[in-house]
């Protein structure tokens, strides 16, 4: 990293403030971004990180304060203006055009043109392919974006940002959906950008990434700047304390053998297959057991759990819950049988963004909240308040649209909504994606406790430490098949990665 502290900041946020009605999301934050270095921004869920990003992206305008570029104030009135000012943004939630091709998504509005101003598709797809090569992923630029997994969406977003000839790169949790390999590729690309003098603002809840990539770190709490300084001067513990304002108990609070009191087989999946996606998937989960489904991005883990839950149909095999066969393709039947699925894409699958926090929370429990078939607003509110409280969801009001919550808080609400059903089998797909350390520990504790109380848990996670720390048993998938089943004692980074990639020498 070639940055020197003496160089003037490339971009400087000065005393910016932004409120949404009564919620003060960002209050008087100043932040310099220096050329040639990556600057980390950390904070709890809802601390105001994404709001800050959106002000740089021209999505929100600050209520007070301004942004300086090369020492001169700039008005970032809209996203186009931000782009023109040389700021490229990777938003926390990927927003792609599902009907267009991946390449078009990347180059929308900047497509290479040929004769008579017509778009040169070949050139465009070539350029996209080169970008993916740089990121080390094999994504087809000519395919439709519809149906891309969250990770592939995120990679497309990254490629989009990289394709812009920008001087400032703002990355809001770009790695949340990525596994170690892709993240590592992103870092090397990012380092390359820094070497060429770009300034990078990097947001992540994973501290190892912050420490590996960034030179400076700024901590936000409740929209206020708590500290800013060189990464070299701090430790993970100090950063966490500043973020949370208290000590955080250990992550992965699961002692070996915690799941010893295992009960009968609750979930029994036999020979499950879906043509072109996965095949011959068989496993069981017992009461009180946490089984992790590990693998690289795109291995088909999410597809498997979706088929188990019935939102996708399977072509072969069967799913039994406590011996009773589930009718295929019916989530309602799965719910009735005591299954709960916390899906990986909270925006599309987990929540109804326009509906209020309260309505979302109650969505899975409507029949139980009704008396004589009629719902009472009071009962519903009490129920929602209770569950939002248990998972410490930060929200402006129960009547606010859930879209106004920060990403992490949305994730907690999805968990709440499913835990509220009192399931026998809990399936969680990337349960802690985008969740801050404090809440992550909380989520882990909740899952462990539920397991201890006899719940069967199936967990899909791309975070290896989480898999190793939580699971009693690890199933590893590669290209749509289960390639290994490792009991807790045998599950190590090495063994899991080997099963996931089929190669020995991979670092996660």
């Amino acid at each position, binding site marked *: 990293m070639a940055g020197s502290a003496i160089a003037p900041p490339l971009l400087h946020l000065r005393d910016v403030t932004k*409120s*949404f*009605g009564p919620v003060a999301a960002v209050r008087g934050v100043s932040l310099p971004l220096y050329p040639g270095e990556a600057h980390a921004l950390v904070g709890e869920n809802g601390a105001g990180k994404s709001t800050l990003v*959106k002000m740089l992206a021209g*999505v929100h*305008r600050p*209520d007070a304060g301004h942004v300086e570029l090369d020492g001169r104030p700039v008005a970032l009135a*809209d996203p186009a203006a931000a782009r023109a000012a040389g700021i490229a943004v990777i938003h*926390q*939630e990927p927003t792609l055009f599902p009907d267009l091709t991946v390449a078009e998504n990347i180059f929308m509005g900047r497509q290479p043109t040929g004769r008579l101003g017509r778009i040169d598709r070949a050139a465009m797809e070539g350029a996209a392919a080169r970008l993916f090569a740089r990121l080390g992923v094999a994504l087809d630029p000519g395919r439709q974006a519809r149906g891309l997994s969250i990770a592939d969406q995120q990679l497309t977003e990254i490629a989009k940002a990289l394709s812009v000839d920008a001087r400032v790169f703002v990355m809001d949790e770009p790695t949340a959906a990525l596994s170690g390999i892709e993240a590592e590729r992103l870092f090397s690309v990012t380092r390359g950008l820094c070497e060429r003098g770009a300034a990078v603002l990097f947001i992540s809840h994973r501290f190892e990434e912050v420490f590996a990539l960034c030179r400076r770190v700024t901590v936000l709490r409740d929209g206020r700047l708590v500290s800013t300084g060189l990464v070299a001067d701090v430790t993970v513990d100090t950063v966490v304390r500043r973020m949370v304002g208290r000590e955080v108990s250990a992550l992965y609070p699961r002692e070996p053998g915690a799941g010893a009191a295992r009960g009968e087989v609750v979930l029994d999946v036999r020979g499950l297959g879906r043509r072109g996606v996965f095949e011959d998937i068989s496993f069981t989960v017992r009461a009180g057991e946490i089984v992790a489904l590990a693998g690289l991005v795109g291995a088909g883990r999410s597809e498997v759990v979706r088929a188990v*839950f019935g*939102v996708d149909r399977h072509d072969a095999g069967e799913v039994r819950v406590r011996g009773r066969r589930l009718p295929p393709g*019916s*989530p309602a039947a*799965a*719910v009735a049988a005591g299954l709960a699925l916390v*899906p990986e894409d909270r*925006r*599309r*699958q*987990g*929540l*109804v*963004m*326009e*509906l*209020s926090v*309260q*309505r979302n929370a109650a*969505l899975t429990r*409507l*029949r139980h*909240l009704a008396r004589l*078939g*009629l*719902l009472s*607003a009071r009962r519903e*509110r*009490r129920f*929602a*308040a*209770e569950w*939002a409280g*248990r998972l410490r969801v930060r*929200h402006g*009001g*129960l*009547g*606010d*649209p*859930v*879209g*106004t*919550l920060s*990403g992490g808080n*949305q994730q907690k609400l999805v968990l709440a909504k499913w835990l509220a059903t*009192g399931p026998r089998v809990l399936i969680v797909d990337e349960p802690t994606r985008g969740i801050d350390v404090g809440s992550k520990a909380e989520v882990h504790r*909740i899952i462990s*406790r539920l397991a201890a*109380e006899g719940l069967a848990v199936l967990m899909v996670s791309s975070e290896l430490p989480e898999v190793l720390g939580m699971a009693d048993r690890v199933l590893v998938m590669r290209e749509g098949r289960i390639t290994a089943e490792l009991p807790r004692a045998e599950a190590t980074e090495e063994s899991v990665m080997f099963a996931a990639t089929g190669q020995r020498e991979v670092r996660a």
Partner: protein
Amino acid sequence: MAHDTLYASRPRRARRARRAAGPGPLRPLLRWDGAVGLALLLVALGAALLVDGFATAGNVRFLLLDAVAVALVALPMTLVVVTGEIDLSVASALGLCSAVMGRLWVAGLPLELIVVLAVALGAVLGAVNGLFVTAFALPSLAVTIGTLAAYRGLAFVVLGDDAVADFPFEWTDAVAGTLPGGAVPWAMLLTALLAVAFGVLLHGTPFGRGLYAMGNNAEAAAFAGIRVARAKFWLFVASGATSGLAGVFWTLRYASARADNGQGLELSVVAAVLLGGVSIFGGRGTLPGVFFGVLLLATLRNALQLADVPADTLDIVTGSLLIASVVVPNAIARARARPATGRAAPAGEPTAPPRQERPEREDTEDAPA
């Protein structure tokens, strides 16, 4: 369940959160339905004062009778549109049921049985729509444009250019009969009761809650275990059955079973539903709003007709009202949002879901130059 640790309640937090929630779900109800209801009241009052012959029992009776068919069909249509679908075939289903009714009457069946059969036929027609939309996953707009033509065509196949007009006097008279006082027709009272039933279904039951969820995000609703396709299917059936009922009403009201009965009614229904504040993209709208919307349009039309306003002006007024019904509240919302600077951006952008071209929640940037 055994998870009592997590499942223990935390009353204090709950109470605080409740206070923060404010009027919550009541807010839109007060805002939009109130506005349409108020507009209805004002138009009625104004007409009573300014237009000769408006405030007579006879006129109110005619006004309400004219509104019955649209009101009936608008009830299930509200639910259908809330789920993000639309049923444009209602008027044709009405016509087909009317035609079949005439054919059966000529064949000598008792009218009681015919009424039941007509409603059942409507339900079947609705089921056909529902099947295409849910099982074959076709867009309802396209499907019901197709059945709009098909059902109307079948009506002509059934009855051709004949009209059956000799329904018994007791029946045709009863349909237009009123409650004591002579102003409120029985038919409208029944429609209002039906409206209450649909209103409770939509606003007070888990089923209705699910409709809003699927209207906003069908995928998330399916993930939550809501039977999206099944609900939609039954809504189309309800829409068809109600169209059948409206067909029975229409036939007896005008004492004339014809294949072209109710032609073009679908646009009036859609207009009333939209005026009532239902979002055409689904997920938003209330039943009282729609009911008031139907009455508002009917009252306005009646008053303007009495005031000898020509038909083309009436069309212009109807159209402008429809436009104003979406533009004005939007403008007000934005004006209200401006002083509180923060409201400039829509909820949750960019985290908001795909279909969010809603009024009221839009941001101000990027208006055309």
